[in-house]
């Protein structure tokens, strides 16, 4: 199972990538997309919307059920991935790349400390 070392993770299977311009890009992990199976619908937050760490910010619907996607850190939504709204299978095909969901401008950067490292996340999904 792919768990890129440069990303940070949540217990609820989101990944987050801190970009150079201090933007935090969010998606779901390879493990999560495999659990969900074929994604058929993605509901994204609105640009400018405030999100809070650990609170539902997007919804992914698969053939199995609908799942809330939790914000890894608090902040304001700066961008959303329109491509994934039109082509939800991107989440299955390329969850760490073209299947990203939304980006946040963090308002409480200290929260990042509470996220999991790739080793810690890998340990969690193997448990």
């Amino acid at each position: 199972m792919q768990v890129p070392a440069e990303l940070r993770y949540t217990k609820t299977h989101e990944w987050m990538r801190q970009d150079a311009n201090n933007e935090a890009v969010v998606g779901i992990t390879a493990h999560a997309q495999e659990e969900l199976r074929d994604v058929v619908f993605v509901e994204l937050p609105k640009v400018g919307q405030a999100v809070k760490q650990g609170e539902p910010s997007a919804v992914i619907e698969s053939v199995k059920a609908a799942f809330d996607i939790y914000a890894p850190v608090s902040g304001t939504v700066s961008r959303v991935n329109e491509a994934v709204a039109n082509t939800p299978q991107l989440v299955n095909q390329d969850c760490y790349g073209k299947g990203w969901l939304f980006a946040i401008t963090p308002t409480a950067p200290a929260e990042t400390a509470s996220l999991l490292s790739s080793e810690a996340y890998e340990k969690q999904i193997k448990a």
Partner: protein
Amino acid sequence: MSMSGPLIFERSVPGRRGYAVPPGDVPAVPPGDVLPEDHLRAAPPRLPEVAEFDAVRHYTRLSQANFSVDTHFYPLGSCTMKYNPKLNERIAALPGFAWLHPLQPAAQAQGILQLLYELEQLLCAITGMAAFTLQPAAGAQGELAGLKIIAAYHRRKRRARSTILIPDSAHGTNPASAALSGFTVIQLKSGPDGLIDLRELRRKLTKDVAALMLTNPNTLGLFEREIKTIAALLHEQGALVYMDGANMNALLGISRPGDMGVDLLQLNLHKTFSTPHGGGGPGAGPVGVAKALEDFLPVPRVRKVGTRFRWEARGRATVGRVHGFYGNVGVLVRAYAYIRTLGREGLARASRAAIINANYLKVRLQDTFPVPFDDHCLHEFVVTLKALRARGISAGDVAKRLLDYGCYAPTVYFPLIVEEALMIEPTETESKETLDEFAQALRAIAHEAQHNPELVRRAPQRMVVDRVDEVKAAREPNLRWVEPDPSVQAAGSKPHAAPPLGSG
């Protein structure tokens, strides 16, 4: 995919009719004279033109391809697909019920009003609540009405309350209803035993909580043993306890939500009280409330004055009307017939039998498929098919293979706290022989999964319609028939269904 025949639209022949309308004996009025222009069609609707006989054959054939409670074992967890006694139908078809008009004056409808009044009293006795409305037409509409009552109650008390606590084992409609009512939903994580974790509840129970919405027994088929403590905690904070009564089939005549501290609940008559369900008929989701909430119930209400019954259209604090007229009255008549037929002791025996059937089946299956939250269950239980993953088989595959064995598929992938879940609810109406056959079928499928997994992955194979592409159906829904392009037809091509909506 092999279809069983053409669509009714494809059977259409221009000008073919199933009946002849006699000449009118009233003067014709052009629709444009009496209806606003934007309500008029430019062209008549393209309805299929077939003879009565074509329509009868077409729909009879489709009905024979169907799975239903009347044809197959239907262990659809959380849906209580019990047998619908035919006596209910005979009672509902009595001319005095069947021919009533909803606008008939109360003086001419004393019989049905008495029945509705008595049904409310019976539901109060069964649940321990103080009053009921029979208006909501489904369980989820009952939830919505209940949440409106919760909001109205806090408004009256001048308390600002914006959140609803919901355990992760709740029915999916609970958070949906709460969100639709304008509340913020806060999820409670279940404890390791699959029940509400009191520490988690205490942590999240703030002064902003309007109510806890819980299902009891929960979707794992487990009874919330700490319900009285839970209710007391909520009440200390001035919050209410809403119970989703969809699983009431485990409690009839055994315990009453009103005695547990529940403030309001909805019942699903189409589950617990044997009225037709799913494609078989409309639902009914009456809401029962404790005394303190009675003023908020929807109007109209049926009142008894002396020996007469009448409608009361006004209420001081009512949340208003939630259904035209008084709900799905035909369904209410059937539920009344069921309750009267079984009586107090009969209802208790039905619930006991439902619990015994579920526990029997759970034990019969435990060597094949484990139950993650293993306790004495009530009316249903949830197994995990996680072990089959190594063979590339999902819970959905097993569910579809069960169709080949003549059993309707149990609920899959729910609740979400169990991986590869199959949620099984046999109900009280099934015999030991049927339960044994079902256990045998699941064991046979487990064997196939090891020795011929392709058979399971490609199921169903013996149905009229074989494996459908659920992913394509969800991503590119094709929801209506569109007349084929005549130029394509003229070129000799076979007419085919419409392109997916939204693709062009």
